[in-house]
């Protein structure tokens, strides 16, 4: 009876006393027992629920500090770390009657696009166990896709919510930088990190964003902009001008392009206007991201000395070491101007590029990833492959704009989810959610989410 029910639907059932919180939480714990050994979604399952509470479960990526619940960032460095404080995101969820069902697998320190850099083994793609669920929020994406949680929290630095959402066939919302507090989120690249929801429905994404968004005095980069009622504003029948650009179709798989053109037609039919625009080629964003992210990583990961908590630096995996070293290089004497400063200047060009585009259009439609989910083991072969999988997500992340990925059909031969994304103006999550909701109502995302759930019966 519960299978596939959205978070908001479950809440309504609990409220109307059709089902109890205990039944809901036991239901998901049973499913986790059944499917987690196969999928490797959860690193820690929380069985400490107290029966007197009215709560709804949610899965949280293992880089959010949860007071009293082990938090590893999928690294052996933090294998036994029990945070003494609560991240703002999880604190707000708990205060809104959410129960943290468990902590989900990810690439170690969120360094990667496949969860294969996790020190606790990769998460399998629920659609095809020989493939990656994407990353770094691959555990959260797979948790939602296989219904081991009704919804999940992920975090994105450049693609880490949208790309796994796309590969696992769920919705992933990356809010504008500063819309959601980073306090207690284990820092990866602080000028880019954004927490966000991963869900089965647009309503759930809107509902969760409302709870976690807003000014936090513990994160100076959060905005004082008012938090709109995202859920209520979904129902407004807004009309938009939607930008599309050839720059985001280079090297994209033909079937994904077809899905993109199909959606363009549907949007026109719904009364929206499609407009061709020009944007800087995304390949420059890869370089900017590579430099800035590695630089911030080398600084953020300097704190892990094994003295106050965690294990020492010999416990870092290969990917973390490589990133720390490149970051150290681009910040070092003699190279700082050539690399780090140059990257920050190009970042300015990318921001200006988006500003210009958003004078002409309300949002931009593009594929989320150039290809559908890859086989496990592919990433290791190329040092740069992860960035290439995130190429269409990186420009928006660098500019700090909001973006949402949603499923739109399956590839024919391999039956894998295709993801498309909408990028919106800074702090206009309302609009990208509104259009995603219109697409959901019109097309049901071509049935992807329901088909995915069929593979995971109770």
């Amino acid at each position, binding site marked *: 009876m519960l299978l596939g029910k959205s978070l908001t639907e479950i809440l309504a059932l609990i409220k109307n006393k059709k089902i109890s919180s205990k039944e809901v939480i036991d239901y998901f714990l049973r499913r986790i027992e059944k499917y987690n050994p196969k999928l490797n979604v959860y690193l820690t399952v929380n069985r400490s629920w107290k029966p007197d509470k009215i709560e709804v479960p949610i899965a949280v990526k293992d880089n959010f500090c949860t007071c009293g619940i082990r938090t590893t960032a999928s690294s052996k460095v933090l294998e*036994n*770390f*029990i945070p*003494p*404080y609560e991240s703002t995101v999880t604190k707000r969820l708990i205060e809104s009657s959410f129960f943290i069902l468990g902590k989900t697998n990810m690439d170690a320190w969120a360094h990667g696009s496949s969860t294969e850099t996790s020190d606790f083994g990769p998460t399998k793609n629920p659609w095809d166990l020989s493939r990656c669920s994407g990353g770094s929020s691959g555990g959260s994406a797979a948790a939602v896709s296989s219904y081991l949680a009704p919804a999940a929290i992920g975090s994105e630095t450049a693609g880490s919510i949208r790309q796994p959402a796309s590969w696992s066939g769920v919705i992933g919302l990356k809010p*504008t*930088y*500063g819309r959601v507090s980073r306090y207690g989120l284990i820092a990866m690249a602080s*000028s880019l990190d954004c927490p966000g929801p991963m869900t089965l429905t647009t309503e759930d994404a809107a509902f969760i964003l409302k709870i976690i968004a807003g000014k936090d*005095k*513990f994160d*100076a*980069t959060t*905005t004082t902009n008012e938090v709109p009622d995202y859920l209520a504003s979904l129902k407004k029948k807004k009309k938009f001008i939607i930008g599309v650009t050839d720059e985001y179709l280079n090297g994209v798989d033909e079937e994904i392009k077809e899905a993109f053109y199909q959606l363009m037609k549907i949007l026109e039919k719904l009364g929206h206007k499609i407009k061709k625009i020009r944007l800087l080629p995304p*390949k*420059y964003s*890869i*370089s*900017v991201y*590579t*430099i800035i992210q590695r630089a911030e990583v*080398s600084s953020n990961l*300097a704190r892990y*000395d094994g*003295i*106050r*908590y*965690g294990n020492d*630096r*010999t416990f*870092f995996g*290969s990917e973390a*070491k*490589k990133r*720390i*070293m*490149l970051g*150290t*290089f681009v910040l*070092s004497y003699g190279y700082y101007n*050539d*690399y780090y*400063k*140059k*990257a*920050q*200047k*190009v*970042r*300015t*060009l990318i*921001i200006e590029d988006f500003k210009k585009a958003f004078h002409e259009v309300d949002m931009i439609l593009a594929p989320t990833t150039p290809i559908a989910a890859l086989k496990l083991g592919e990433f290791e072969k190329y*040092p*740069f492959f992860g960035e290439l999988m995130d190429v269409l997500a990186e420009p928006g992340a*660098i*500019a*700090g704009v909001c973006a949402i990925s949603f499923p739109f059909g399956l590839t024919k031969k391999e039956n894998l989810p295709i993801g498309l994304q909408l990028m919106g103006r*800074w*702090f206009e999550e309302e609009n990208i959610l509104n259009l995603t909701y219109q697409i959901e109502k019109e097309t049901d995302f071509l049935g992807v989410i329901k088909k995915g759930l069929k593979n995971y019966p109770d």
Partner: protein
Amino acid sequence: MKKKALSKNDVLYLAKLAGLTLADNEVERFKSQLEETISYIENLNELATDNVLPTSHATFLKNVFFDDDEKNERSLDLEEVFQNTQNKEENCFKIKKIFDE
């Protein structure tokens, strides 16, 4: 930008700066992977940036301060501070000696 070929010593020096110990097979592997990444990111030279200001922040915030006399609610008590360490003596962290007598 200078075209950069890294030597084995460059890699070891970076590791030393970053406080990392590398296995022998990692030195060679990282050297070639770092070189490959560095040659890719040189595509930024295709863009003119002479009169462009570097980004300090992507979302247009200015001067964010705490109010005077605001209490820092983030501080932890002693038990919380030491709960994740084995390097404790009285109320101090034990570290390796960094100065000689």
